[in-house]
């Protein structure tokens, strides 16, 4: 994924001032380096005086498209100077499944099924597990400089907001989940870079549980072996399950105000006094003309190479029952190796045999998905055991 690194040209200009012209660099680190002479360099330890200077903004995205929102998240992470500015971004998406950076989408959902249902699949930049989003799920991203990254602060802030607004008691688990009566209402992931970092999490407000369940279901008969991060499945709950009044709009206002009224270094209430000193709420329109470079980020996130091509190597297999003429049941295992999202090879292992028989197929070199796998399986099912056995015994 990438950005034009700015070229720095220096020339004696009109007045003998040194002109430093540069392409608008979309790398925050670059811009900080060039102009740091005019601003004081940040110290690693934050004193309370420094924290007085930190102004907070709440950005609310005008888009419901997962790729646009992931792109603007990335844009802010790369381009904003967060030294004295902490940002909370609040965003909502149309129904989609979002997998972690190092995950295998085929382990987490029925990818082909999602496509048919019109549910987008996206791979985010941060690690962690898979989540399902819909319009009744609120996403929160906390942007800070790397040295002020604090997940517990963020999650506690959300918990406080929910309590202050609705009187609902939630707790933060060790795995950084927000729990309501022991069930998950939120999942967390983060990205730590230089000089910025972000922590994002979901909040289930009134999500459609049936849709969630069917989106995150895959064919269990297909066994997948891979080194990809596996999701830890947990039972979930909606905030609206305990209080019918909870809705996304009201909740985001509550969390936003809690963010603005809490000092950056302490979980306490600064009240209206502190809110008055902040930058406040802002709607953002994530389009190229407002944020140059955004389209490129979005295209990358929506590309096959990123979504599927980044899948860690895996092998998917299933067992096919063979019917024989002599009522003797046998089975064979078909294994498909997939690397970078492409079918590399297809193997057949007859039960009881240790021999591995490679299959020639036009599907080798094609992108993998469950549909293709089913085609392979169906093709193999139609071959009778006799043929298979004879091939084994007589060789090819």
């Amino acid at each position, binding site marked *: 994924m990438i950005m034009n690194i700015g070229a720095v040209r220096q020339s004696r200009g009109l007045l003998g*001032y040194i*002109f430093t012209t540069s392409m*608008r660099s979309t790398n925050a680190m670059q*811009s900080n380096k060039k*102009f740091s002479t005019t601003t004081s360099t940040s110290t690693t330890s934050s004193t309370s005086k420094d924290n007085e200077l930190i102004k907070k903004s709440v950005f609310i995205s005008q888009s419901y498209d997962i790729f646009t929102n992931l792109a603007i998240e990335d844009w802010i992470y790369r381009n904003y*100077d967060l030294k004295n500015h902490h940002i909370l971004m609040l965003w909502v998406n149309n129904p989609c499944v979002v997998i972690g950076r190092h995950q295998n989408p085929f382990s987490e959902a029925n990818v082909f099924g999602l496509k048919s249902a019109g549910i987008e699949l996206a791979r985010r930049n941060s690690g962690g597990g898979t989540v399902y989003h819909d319009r009744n799920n609120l996403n929160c991203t906390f942007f800070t400089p790397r040295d002020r990254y604090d997940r517990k602060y963020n999650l506690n802030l959300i918990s406080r907001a929910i309590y202050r607004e609705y009187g609902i008691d939630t707790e933060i688990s060790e795995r950084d989940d927000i729990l309501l009566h022991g069930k998950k209402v939120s999942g967390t992931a983060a990205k730590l870079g230089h000089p910025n970092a972000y922590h994002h999490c979901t909040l289930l407000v009134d999500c459609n549980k049936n849709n969630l369940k069917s989106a995150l279901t895959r064919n269990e008969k297909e066994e997948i072996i891979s080194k990809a991060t596996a999701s830890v499945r947990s039972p979930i709950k909606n905030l609206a399950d305990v209080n019918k009044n909870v809705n996304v709009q009201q909740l985001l206002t509550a969390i936003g105000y809690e963010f603005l009224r809490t000092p950056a270094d302490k979980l306490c209430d600064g009240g209206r006094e502190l809110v008055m000193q902040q930058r406040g709420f802002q709607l*953002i329109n994530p389009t190229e003309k407002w944020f140059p470079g955004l389209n490129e980020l979005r295209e990358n996130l929506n590309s096959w190479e990123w979504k599927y091509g980044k899948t860690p190597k895996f092998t998917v297999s299933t067992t096919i029952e063979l019917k024989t003429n002599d009522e003797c049941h046998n089975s064979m295992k078909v294994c498909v190796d997939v690397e970078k999202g492409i079918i590399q090879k297809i193997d057949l292992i007859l039960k009881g045999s240790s021999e591995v028989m490679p299959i020639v197929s036009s599907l080798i070199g094609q992108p993998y998905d469950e549909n293709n796998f089913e085609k392979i399986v169906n093709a193999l099912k139609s071959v009778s055991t006799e043929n298979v056995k004879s091939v084994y015994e007589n060789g090819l």
Partner: protein
Amino acid sequence: MSIHGKTMLPYIVRKVFEIQHKLYQQQIRACSTGRLQEALKIEEEQEFPKINEIKQPEESSFYYPVDKKFKHDPDIGEQFSYSQLRVRLAGPHQLQPKPEADDLQFGKLFTDHMFKVAYHKRLGGWQVPEIMPLENLVLHPAAKVLHYAVELFEGMKAFRGVDGRIRLFRPEMNMARMNASAQRSGLPTFEPEEFVKCISRLVSIDQEWVPHTESASLYIRPTLIGIEPTLGVASSESALLYTILSPVGGYFAGNSGTSTGVSLLADPQYTRSWPGGVGDRKMGSNYAPTIHVQKEASKQGFQQVLWLYGDDHQLTEVGTMNIFVLLINDRGERELVTPPLNGLILPGIVRHSILNLAREWNQVKVTERKITMAEVKKLVYENRVLEMFGAGTACVVSPIERIFYMNENLLIPTMENSDAVWRTMRNTLLDIQYGRVKHPWAIEID
């Protein structure tokens, strides 16, 4: 007497041969109309009506005093300060959705917040300043502003620099000008530094209204109106000072406005300002009468109006901008000419900046003097006008291509120079404003 080291003589001889026929034609026209003859008369001495004391501005001083602490009227009462500022932030439901960046036309869209502070003489002077979500004003029907145009305003911009920091361009000058306008309108004056701090806070809150590109800015419109609900033509004892912000892309609809030059209508029957008037203050009453004239110009296919004054058709301003002419003078030197601040001209901040830059640059002679249409016409015929451009906050520099004057099209070769002064000025100012060059004129707000 040389241009770039070459002697003048061959140049003059060549020019004379080239334009001889034009001079001849001009003579014929001069004889046909008496009025025109008068207009074509070029005076030896540069005389202009000395109504006010004409201050030849020094390099750093402005028309209105900037550096010194402002001297208020003794009975003005309390001043407001930034430390008193109260902020009421807009909640998510009060925010305006942001449109496509292309739809950001000048002055059509406003940000989410505004600044307001009231003045009541009866209550001791200036009251507590506040920032709140953008809302309508409620005025008594007898409010003086509605009857006698007791109003003044300012125009300035905030820029998001290439390093992400927000900068204001020479705000202290707008403040000085605004206080001077206030005095002339019978309105209360204020502490310039405190107001700039309040404006900075407002800009800081609404800074996400500026796209992250390098050609967008936030236009700042501070306004002062007299709201006392009495019909007497007297000083308004109550006033409202407020500021609204408008995100802008380029100034003229569509593009940046400098790929082609503008066309002007110069009609001496219309006068924008006059000696003893308020042409040198930014008061709303100066602008209302110009709307009809602008409409006439547009109908005839011209983009802006070139305002002339006097029987000798002096050039004063173009549209809402100051005017500059780059010409070759009688000594063969390149000279940058702009009308002087004699009371007819609004002392522009971009104008002042360009004069400073040009003097520092020292590549052209810089003169503030009267210039008439007769002179311009003569020089155009002799190919001695190199460039003409308008200068103002809205579009920084606007090159002029054509002037329609007395039924004649004067073509100005402004766009033809590759090494143009107007372009250099524009680029230098933009570099300062966008923080590409570190310069004391661009003040960071945080």
